[in-house]
């Protein structure tokens, strides 16, 4: 028995990868429909956006990158749909170089975006209800500059002068923002410092799972209003807005993957404990 436990403890990692591969493939072939319960954080974000008065200015910082795409892009798409549905003024800007590609992907559809988002379906007109200002380089300097002057790009992403876009009359500086929603895997503190601390604008983050723990202290202090964390946050938000999309579809995969990790930990420890009890190393 000791020999078989020892063999189990020293099992080639590739067998573990195979088990994980099989488990995550099952829901792709046959969806399981496991339940998804929205968390308090997602509910808070939803209620906040629902409570915004008509013609409120919502600024979205689409700073997703390809690496965090599956998490942040799905969050971006579901929030985009929610904001477009309501009578709000949406200003989209990117502070990451890959942002423009992923903003385009949301409208065109793609592997990490799901189905295309069509603003016309919600009665929104480009330039009146929503606008995309493109990529602004510079990191924290860009955050400061954009907050001081939202017209700093002079044109939108396709080169149209901002004077010709009626929506921009609603947004001159950060004082005009009702909320800013940032989808980003890093530089959270800079955004908190330059947007919330400087202008007291409610700040909502869409973060990948690994960045979520550092948000708890900022939420506790009130500097961050709330957050969507990882694919789970996007799926919860899809349930709340009744816009079931890619995130909810992938939740079964996530569930089984997480259970596989828990099982690996438990089995690994059981083997370790049995070996220790029987006097092995």
């Amino acid at each position, binding site marked *: 028995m000791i020999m078989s436990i020892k063999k189990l403890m020293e099992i080639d990692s590739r067998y573990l990868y195979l088990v994980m591969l099989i488990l995550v493939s099952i829901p792709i072939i046959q969806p399981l429909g496991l339940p998804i319960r929205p968390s308090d954080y997602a509910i808070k974000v939803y209620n906040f956006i629902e409570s915004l008065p008509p013609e409120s200015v919502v600024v979205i910082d689409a700073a997703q990158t390809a690496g965090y795409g599956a998490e942040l892009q799905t969050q971006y798409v579901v929030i985009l749909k929610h904001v477009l549905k309501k009578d709000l003024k949406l200003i989209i800007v990117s502070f990451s170089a890959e942002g423009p590609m992923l903003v385009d992907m949301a409208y065109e559809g793609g592997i990490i975006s799901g189905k295309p988002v069509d603003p016309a379906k919600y009665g929104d007109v480009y330039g009146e209800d929503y606008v995309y200002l493109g990529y602004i380089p510079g990191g924290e300097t860009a955050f400061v500059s954009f907050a001081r002057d939202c017209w700093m790009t002079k044109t939108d992403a396709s080169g149209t002068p901002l004077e010709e876009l009626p929506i921009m009359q609603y947004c001159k500086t950060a004082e005009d923002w009702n909320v800013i929603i940032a989808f980003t895997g890093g530089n959270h503190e800079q955004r908190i410092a330059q947007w919330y601390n400087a202008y007291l604008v409610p700040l909502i983050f869409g973060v990948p799972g690994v960045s979520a723990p550092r948000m708890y202290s900022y939420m506790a202090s*009130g500097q961050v209003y709330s957050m969507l964390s990882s694919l789970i946050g996007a799926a919860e938000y899809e349930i709340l807005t009744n816009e079931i999309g890619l995130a909810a579809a992938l939740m079964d995969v996530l569930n089984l993957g997480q259970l596989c990790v828990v099982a690996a930990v438990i089995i690994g420890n059981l083997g370790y404990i049995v070996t220790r009890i029987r006097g092995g190393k």
Partner: protein
Amino acid sequence: MIKLASGREVILVGTALILVILLYMMIIQGEKRKKLYPIRRLPAMDAMEEAVGRAVEMQRPIHYVPGTGALNRLEATSTLAGLTLLSYVAGLAAKTGARIITTCQVADVYPLTIEIVRQAFQVEGQTDMFREEDCLFMPQEKSAAGLIQRERVAANFLIGAFWHESLVLIEAGARAGAMNIGGAAYTLGQIPFLVSCCDYCLVGEEVYAASAYITKDPSETSVIAGQDYIKLIGLGFIILGTLLSTMGLTVLYDLFGA
């Protein structure tokens, strides 16, 4: 006309800065008096020599990543700490004859890694052993996983600011049979991965203390002591604030709160 910036954040930052400067002056006094403050044992630092020795015995290279952070963002100090330890590890490698491969993802850090490793070999009088082709620029740091496994490194150092690539590199090192030594300060999200999966790990400001630990220099240990004094003052504020808030007095919160 010149005006002083106002606002609660400015008060908070100003207070913190004054405290830090006062303590910094205290540190300088300590340096002048050559007082050596004791630093508790950091197993990861002791393991570095062991790791380099292991690489020499097994005749396999060392791999070092000074993080994937830039020098113009908040993680700059973490990256600097990673570079400081690179200097130490490269010196050990030069002294013992180990081959050291460094991979760097960030363009502005890359020239520094080359110079630091070159300098370390020069100091040990082993200039001919320095190989610039072993200092690689890897725009996607996780690509180093392939390098780690191909070269079958014996020691894998990941010290600096990391994001999601840290686990890829650690597992690649584990599969290659390497001893993994990690250290992360700024990027808190990776600390759990480094702590759980590395053989040894420097957590948070242990990365900053590492340099003082190696050199046991009064000037460096004074810095660490000064940081600890600032933390004690911060702790005092936390306890005072908690007690005052419990009693319904929000004076500290009104002064410093966001």
